[in-house]
């Protein structure tokens, strides 16, 4: 077995257990799309080209006929700003990729691929095929799940009854564990968590992830500045 194939299978094995989340989210996205007046084809096209569940769901929230296209685009962007942060963080770990591999990775960046790459980077180098082993199944499920939801969505009335809305956060909780052991993680987590909660309660229903994450990053910068000062003044 080649190294690339082994890496692909590594990614695939890691992502398989969590595929329940994209299955349910894409199904819900397809069902809501049809409720909002999109055809099944349009819903699937949106999933294939946008490929971002949170952004699609929020855009559909503000989707009326005829569409306020600027509002819809703003909705999609505001919840997807975290991609800019995730791409900025992961790109330093994929410098050894070819330019095409790097572009493909960033253009299809998704939460599981990002999170699992960051965790893998804690112990070894991340490869393109590893990331692809995570992204390919998620991308395929995203399209077929949206189509299925668009065609069969009327069958489930309330997805929160099945607790599926919690699957996404549950995955993030489990993904976050390896980072707590690193030094300085606690103040960063406190800053980003508390600011994110405050932002959400203040009504930033889409931007709170970005705002909270920036607070965490600022805290890390402050801590580093203080450490540097202590070194300079003995």
């Amino acid at each position, binding site marked *: 077995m080649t190294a690339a194939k082994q890496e692909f299978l590594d990614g695939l094995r890691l992502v398989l257990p969590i595929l329940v989340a994209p299955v349910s989210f894409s199904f819900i996205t397809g069902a809501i799309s049809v409720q909002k007046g999109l055809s099944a084809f349009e819903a699937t096209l949106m999933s294939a080209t946008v490929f971002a569940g949170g952004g699609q769901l929020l855009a559909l929230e503000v989707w009326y006929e005829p569409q306020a296209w600027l509002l819809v685009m703003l909705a999609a962007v505001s919840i997807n700003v975290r991609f800019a942060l995730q791409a900025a963080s992961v790109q330093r770990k994929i410098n050894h990729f070819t330019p095409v591999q790097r572009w493909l990775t960033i253009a299809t960046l998704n939460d599981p691929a990002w999170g699992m790459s960051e965790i893998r980077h804690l112990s070894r180098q991340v490869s393109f095929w590893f990331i692809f082993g995570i992204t390919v199944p998620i991308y395929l499920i995203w399209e077929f799940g949206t189509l299925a939801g668009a065609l069969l969505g009327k069958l489930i009335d309330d997805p929160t009854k099945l607790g599926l809305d919690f699957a996404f956060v549950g995955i993030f909780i489990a993904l976050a564990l390896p980072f707590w052991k690193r030094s300085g993680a606690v103040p960063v987590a406190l800053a980003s968590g508390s600011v994110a909660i405050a932002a959400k309660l203040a009504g930033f229903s889409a931007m709170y992830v970005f705002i909270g994450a920036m607070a*965490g990053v600022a805290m890390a910068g402050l801590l580093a500045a203080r450490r540097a000062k202590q070194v300079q003044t003995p």
Partner: protein
Amino acid sequence: MSVDANTLLVIIGMALATYLTRIAGLWLLQLANVRGRARSAMDALPPAVLMAVIAPTVLATGLAETLAAAVTMLAAFRLPLLVAVAAGVASVVGLRALIG
């Protein structure tokens, strides 16, 4: 198969806008030469983003979500990811039924 021209344009706009947010992450770093303090800040991005996603749902939604998050975390220390997430989903269903 029906495609409305206006809808198609909005979908293309969303796709482009989302693509730009992903690609913007590359530009961010090419502008700034990342060393020292900025580097420490960048290293904090993964836990910062994860925490900003988790905290509002876990602590500011309801008691059922808070308890289910604790179950997920405890399970994730010992058990595989799937089992931990399944335990979280199962407990959120049960707790919502019990305490609303």
